[in-house]
């Protein structure tokens, strides 16, 4: 079957209709099937180099006792079996306990941040759905946090959160008198809220952008018909806007979740290499285990555990959200 078909195809595609002399040329179908893969090859190879190879190296490292004694030639580090994993998940011992704490902080932070980003972004997009004077300007302004370089934006927040001279305390304490005394935002328990504020400030414009794009695809007739039927703004939002945005939101929430859960830049610029306990996100925690305390084996094991967790969450999420969805018509 496989040997005759290409030959036939080759003949079929011969415009002259004459048989080729000598050995038959194969091309035709194989070429047609092979070409896309050939074109994909560079991307696949790069993916292999940039993602898969480091990932495999990371997994190998997680089974080794890799400290500064072996970092120069990490291949010679002794195998430690599952020790790094055992240490990481032993929640009664300090390393595991700290990892669990960091994990829980990250989960709480991610849920709050993603929820707020989505809420603010959606509200802003719906608000800007109607045309009015100055809409273009507002859209551009809303995207400013998304367009700013992370480091510059977060370091500005560091200045604003400072205890003595920061704008936040100046407004909350000096002007609005909402607090008894100036609060600490970069150390202690409040650091969680400082981190959340920066994360939402930085993240909601992306939600806004995506939801706004999704809104463009909802036909205006639906709203006109609903209005004729007497549906108010709230009902239009519940019955038309949100259901129409379902698939957009599914992707948006997944992307926001993954980005926020893994966010390293925001906490690192805000707090440095040693974050306060209340804001000890897992990305910085793993960085600290690997590059500050030079326990690269344990750090790798923690990374693998994090990867597994995110894979499971993503898998379950995709399973749940794809349930009942029909394949797209081609």
């Amino acid at each position: 079957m496989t040997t005759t078909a290409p030959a036939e195809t080759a003949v079929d595609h011969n415009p002259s209709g004459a048989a080729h002399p000598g050995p038959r040329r194969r091309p035709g179908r194989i070429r047609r099937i092979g070409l896309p893969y050939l074109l994909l090859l560079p991307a696949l190879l790069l993916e292999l180099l940039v993602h898969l190879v480091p990932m495999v190296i990371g997994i190998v490292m997680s089974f080794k006792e890799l400290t500064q004694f072996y970092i120069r030639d990490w291949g010679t580090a002794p195998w430690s079996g599952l020790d790094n994993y055992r240490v990481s998940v032993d929640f009664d011992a300090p390393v595991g306990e700290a990892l669990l704490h960091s994990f829980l902080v990250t989960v709480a932070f991610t849920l709050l941040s993603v929820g707020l980003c989505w809420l603010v972004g959606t509200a802003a997009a719906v608000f800007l759905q109607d045309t009015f004077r100055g809409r273009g300007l507002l859209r551009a302004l809303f995207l400013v946090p998304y367009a700013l370089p992370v480091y510059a934006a977060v370091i500005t927040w560091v200045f604003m959160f400072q205890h003595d001279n920061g704008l936040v305390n100046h407004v909350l304490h000096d002007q609005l008198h909402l607090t008894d005394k100036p609060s600490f935002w970069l150390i202690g328990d409040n650091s969680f809220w400082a981190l959340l504020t920066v994360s939402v400030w930085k993240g909601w414009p992306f939600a806004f952008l995506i939801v706004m794009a999704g809104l463009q695809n909802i036909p205006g007739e639906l709203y006109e018909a609903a209005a004729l039927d007497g549906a108010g703004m709230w009902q239009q939002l519940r019955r038309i806007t949100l259901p129409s945005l379902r698939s957009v939101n599914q992707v948006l929430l997944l992307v926001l979740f993954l980005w926020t859960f893994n966010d390293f830049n925001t906490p690192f610029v805000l707090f440095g290499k040693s974050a306060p306990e209340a804001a000890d996100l897992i990305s910085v925690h793993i960085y600290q285990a690997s590059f500050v305390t030079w326990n690269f084996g344990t750090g790798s094991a923690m990374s693998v555990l994090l990867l597994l967790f995110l894979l499971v969450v993503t898998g379950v999420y995709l399973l749940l959200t794809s349930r009942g969805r029909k394949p797209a018509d081609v």
Partner: protein
Amino acid sequence: MRRTRAAAAGAVAVSLMTLVTACGGGSSTSGGSNDSPKTLTYWASNQGAGVEVDKKVLQPELDKFEKQTGIKVKVEVVPWSDLLNRILTATTSGQGPDVLNIGNTWSASLQATGALLPWNAKNFAAIGGKDRFVDSALGSTGAQGQDPAAVPLYSMSYALYYNKQIFADAGITKPPATWDELIADGKKIQAKGKSALGAEGANLSENIHHVFVFAQQHGGDFFTPDGKPDFTDDNVVAAVKQYVDLMAKDKVIPTGDAEYAQNQSVSDFAKGKQAMLLWQSASSNLKSQGMSEDKYGIAPVPVQSGTPGPGSQVNSAVMGINLAVFKNTDNIDGAKKFVKFMTGDAEQKILNTAYSSIPPVKSVQAESVFSSGTNEVLKDTLATSAAALPQVADESQFETAVGTAVKDLFADAAAGRPVTTDSVKAALEKAQQQMPAK
């Protein structure tokens, strides 16, 4: 068309192969070689007020070296916050500089990686001999019983910087010699509406340097003689508590300093907002912030009682910068020549003057310029009452674990939560458990 496609695919494949080869790391010859005798790459730590200042200081000297030897030195000034990670990356990849600066407290940790050239008798002979360097500086060049992993370049020690005008306004005639005197003076200064003492509560390294000195003054050590962490030793706990109590109980350090980590306390001092500062070689930093030398005095860091000296009267860690050579350098002879040049009498005088540090070379240290004014206190401290931080392979981890514990205790003090012997002990216990198991 087909030919074009094939050519493109070939080009991609070749580029990828190049990439793979490039990622494979460089040569890892263990003793270095002389394959590139005409060039050297040098990573200098950021010593001055900024990277540009360092380049201005170093470049004329490097040009001088090129003129003498024909070896061109490409310098990169690396900020402190990046330096350790850059060294680790270079260690892992084998693609690092030939010569580099390291913080002297990292010596034993970096020595353990095996990436640095050991300074055995032969190598020391190539730069004029080990005897040229003062003992206290040599004490921070690697683990005891092993050949040093680096050579001392700039030495520093902590001192008490005080604002003469604020002291005069508060009726204080001489700087405090003991902690009790410092607290009493602090109250007088605060009564005049000024802040008494600055600290960098969220800066892990600063925390470590101070609690180490307090521990020495209490007769405690963070490590047992065989190198095991002993953070919960009663004397160590008392030492850490005494330091944090300067904010929590004695209230001479303002609570706002608990979140300082970017030298804000130096700025507070330079601006005249604060009367005292415990800092190492601050002169050039203060000058760059507009504070002239006549505005402040410099005194030894206080002790528990009496005057600074050896044993429990230690009042500073031996601070400083060392010069190391990567083992796999392609210009081993040139690297040694460069170390000899940088630690030579002429360069030592020029560089240590520029950075307001003390030369670790005996003959240069004896020069009058380093025995006058602010330098006198720093030099005397190094000579008589400074001790090297623990020279153990886990020193970097110790800085992070204990430095973070102190940072958290400062956060408690700032928030008004009690700092007790038990809470200090618990924080140190946690820090100890985070140290790598042996």
